[in-house]
């Protein structure tokens, strides 16, 4: 590794970090937040068996899980203008990632809801609550707890998948690495560098996930009670 490479890597690091803060992180956060809302709605209409909406949800999930993300991006960015729908690259990417991720997360949420025992509903009815009250206070919190690990994994996967947005001209961190490679012809060093930055972000998310899971574990592990008893 000579001085020139070191200079390129230092310059590259700044640019990659800047692009990650300006594009990759916002794309991941906004995209996943929208995906989560979409997933909740799609899972609920299926779980509650709302007529028509339920079929729409199935259809949406079928389409978005059955076609490649890259094709969806190209279709939205290069294809839709032919129908007169022209979107800037970033909002286009946000929409496609939200819809794509939403379809996967909807399935996660639906199975988490279905894993909540029927007895929780029955007990809720017997203390006088109605469907929505039980859903909100009892069933949904339990389903979210169940869905938390797989949803976190989806978030981490999505962070990495945002690199595909570079294909529709979104100036994310992968695109910034590509640009420097184009100038310097050092693909080995720069793609390694950008890989390390992705690794850093996904490691941070993994650590956050672990901490949250520990916090959330109180009602499905006996550990805390044992600890409490030991202290007492």
């Amino acid at each position, binding site marked *: 590794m000579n001085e020139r490479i070191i200079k390129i890597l230092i310059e590259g690091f700044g640019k990659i970090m800047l692009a990650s803060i300006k594009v990759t992180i916002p794309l991941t956060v906004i995209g996943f937040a929208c995906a989560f809302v979409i997933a909740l709605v799609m899972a609920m209409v299926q779980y509650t068996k709302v007529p028509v909406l339920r079929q729409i949800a199935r259809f949406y999930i079928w389409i978005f899980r059955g076609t490649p993300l890259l094709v969806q991006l190209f279709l939205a960015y290069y294809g839709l203008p032919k129908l007169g729908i022209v979107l800037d690259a970033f909002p286009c990417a946000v929409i496609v990632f939200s819809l794509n991720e939403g379809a996967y997360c909807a399935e996660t949420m639906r199975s988490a809801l279905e894993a909540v*025992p029927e*007895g*929780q509903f*029955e*007990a*809720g*009815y*017997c*203390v*006088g*609550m*109605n469907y929505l*009250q039980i859903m909100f*206070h*009892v069933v949904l*919190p*339990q389903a979210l*707890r169940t869905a938390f690990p797989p949803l976190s994994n989806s978030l981490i996967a999505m962070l990495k998948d945002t690199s595909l947005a570079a294909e529709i001209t979104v100036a994310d961190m992968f695109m910034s690495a590509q640009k420097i490679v184009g100038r310097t012809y050092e693909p080995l060093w720069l793609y390694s560098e950008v890989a390390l930055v992705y690794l850093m972000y996904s490691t941070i998310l993994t650590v956050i996930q672990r901490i949250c899971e520990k916090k959330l574990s*109180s*009602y*499905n*592990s*006996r550990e*805390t*009670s044992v600890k409490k008893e030991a202290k007492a």
Partner: protein
Amino acid sequence: MSMIDIRNVKKTFGGTEVLKGIDLTVEKGDVVAILGPSGSGKTTFLRCINFLEKADEGTMTFDGQTYDLGHIRHRDIAAIRKKTAFVFQNYNLFANKTALQNVMLGLQVARHVPKAEAQKIGMAMLEKVGLSDRADHYPIQLSGGQQQRVAIARALATNPEIIFFDEPTSALDPELIGEVLAVMKQLASDGMTMLVVTHEMNFARNVSNKILFMDNGYVLEHASSKEFFENPKEERTKEFLRNISSQHDA
């Protein structure tokens, strides 16, 4: 006038008639033990009169109001459920709520009782079942007997006119049955009206004042508990009692 008068409850599951016309009269303060072999329809009957299952036909008169169980309106279901409570065989505590929150939820959410008051009632009910020191424990951190006592506290919190119990001790380890029965006995002596499906013959004999004996979807006997145990009328009842006592002797 009786508190509850139930007539001719019928229920069919996929072509098999499980309840073939059940009648039951409950006076205020009654403790009715529902006995009968497994599969005779006891659970289904309790679930039908609390609308966890929809009966095909039958009527229920509750506090002077008569309802058609086959065509009951949502509004009536909600009104009746506000006056009743249910204790399940497998407790069904809200897994994401602590013991205290389990007891408070029906007050806070369904009846809009302010939090401080709900908390006060919740603690008092946990006290009653001897679990005030477990208020902050989640269900999974409690033994089966403790969970069932929390479930009873939850049932009591909303001040029901009657509590339905479906085999409240059947899922418990033998050494934990006593603590739950003790709580139920206390409720009975406090004058709570209770309908209890059970296989605990001592409870049926000594605590309950009436017996409903079911077999194969029919009521075979509806008698005072003294009469039932000392002077059973039906041959099927005698056989049931013989089987139970031979199980106990074994």
